[in-house]
């Protein structure tokens, strides 16, 4: 799941002096749809839910694109911040016994091809889901740091932006989480 440097670098929006926001947003969308979908595929095993949460993330991003400031972080970090909120909202709604997905205005039923595509995506993220399950004992911030950096392929700086913490804190938490996982893994062996 780690991204190559070229791919990661392309996540930053390049804004030409005459570029329209629509073109910029399309670039952001094309470069990040895959990783955002994978992010939800690691969390949900239902194709329709993955589709809805991905749609919700990009709908919110499109609506708030005017307030996106590239100097504060990359588009990918910004998108993952939104995705985190979307997923938290989904969990809160589910915990309350409400059908969170149904309330999403963007919901549209998937056709067979799309379900197959998303099912394949969910299947491909099986290893990531297992790692997340292993991280369940970790504090929330450490778990999120491991996922964003080691699974989603964000740089520590991007992950810090997405999680709203400083880079120093992120690195400390990431290091601590990796040490715990390593220790746990050695214990298993």
């Amino acid at each position, binding site marked *: 799941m780690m991204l190559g440097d070229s791919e990661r670098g392309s996540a930053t929006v390049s804004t030409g002096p005459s570029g329209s926001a629509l073109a910029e947003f399309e670039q952001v969308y094309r470069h990040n749809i895959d990783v955002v979908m994978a992010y939800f595929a690691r969390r949900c095993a239902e194709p329709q839910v993955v589709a809805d949460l991905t749609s919700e993330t990009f709908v919110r991003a499109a609506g708030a694109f005017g307030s996106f*400031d590239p100097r504060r972080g990359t588009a990918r970090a910004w998108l993952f911040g939104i995705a985190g909120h979307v997923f938290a909202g989904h969990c809160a709604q589910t915990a309350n016994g409400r059908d969170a997905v149904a309330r999403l205005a963007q919901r549209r039923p998937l056709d067979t091809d799309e379900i197959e595509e998303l099912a394949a995506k969910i299947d491909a993220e099986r290893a990531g889901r297992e790692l997340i399950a292993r991280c369940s004992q970790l504090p929330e911030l450490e778990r999120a740091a491991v996922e964003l950096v080691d699974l989603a392929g964000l740089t520590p700086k991007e992950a810090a932006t997405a999680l709203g913490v400083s880079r120093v804190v992120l690195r400390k938490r990431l290091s601590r989480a990796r040490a715990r996982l390593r220790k746990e893994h050695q214990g298993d062996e």
Partner: protein
Amino acid sequence: MSKFEDRLWRDLVRRHGADLAEMTKPASKRARRARPRLLASTSVALAGVGTAAVLLLSAASSPPAFAVSRNSDGTYTVTLQKLAAVHGANARLASLGIRARLVVVTQGCTVKALPPAAVHAMALAQSMAGKEAPQVATARLDPRRIPPGQVQVIPAYKVAGTVHVDKAHLMQGQAPACFSTIVAPPCELRQMTVLRNGHLTRLTPAEAKKRAEQALATFRAAVSRGKNTSGDSGNVGNSGNSGSSGNSGSSGNSGNSGNSGTSTATQVPAPAATWTVGCYVHGNHPPVTPNSGNSGNSGTSGNS
């Protein structure tokens, strides 16, 4: 790119393409220009000058497309200059923990119909298009008055190139993604009675007269017992009438009853005429009737 990704992109363009296309300036330039504004307003807040501290100005273009300001009385003022800035303003409201959202009124929206009260405001804005239209639209909201589990929605729309916002409406649950433009209700002709005070009621003239007499009798009884002052007696008249399920015509009658307790106590505000009005259709008027200017509007609210 997969089929899902393509379809999602088409959906995004359909929903936000117009707004994004309006944002022609690069994001980096927008941010650079917005920074001095933010700093300036912060310094104003620190100095304690003025009654409202601007919390955030839009990072869009110059001049700012939206602002969310906190007033000295704890209320907030949302200022909107461009419809495309709705999402930025909403993000700001969310970050402030205010359960209020601006909701764009768009054609073809199937999510939610426009609240009836907003229909009037939009009709008024259309009738006033080009006449003293403000350059920015402002709405005031009080987060303390938003009950738990509800959200205040502020319809926002553009008429003749000018952005308008309506007053806030409370809704259960989440704010809708958009409001549809007005969909005329099925036209239903109703017998309406016009009272002397100009109010409309769905009561028949005889019923309205009887209701007015009852209110007057209650009022007189209260006065004769000497339990209430004349100022209170107006309230008695109202309470006597309150059983009429909030019919504005009846409550209008009670006001007259209160007045009649003085020099015109024997007058009963009998209905002046019986008119037939139709349901309100946006852009149209109810069937033309004598003096139907104001009363026609009242009929609109009754219908909606």
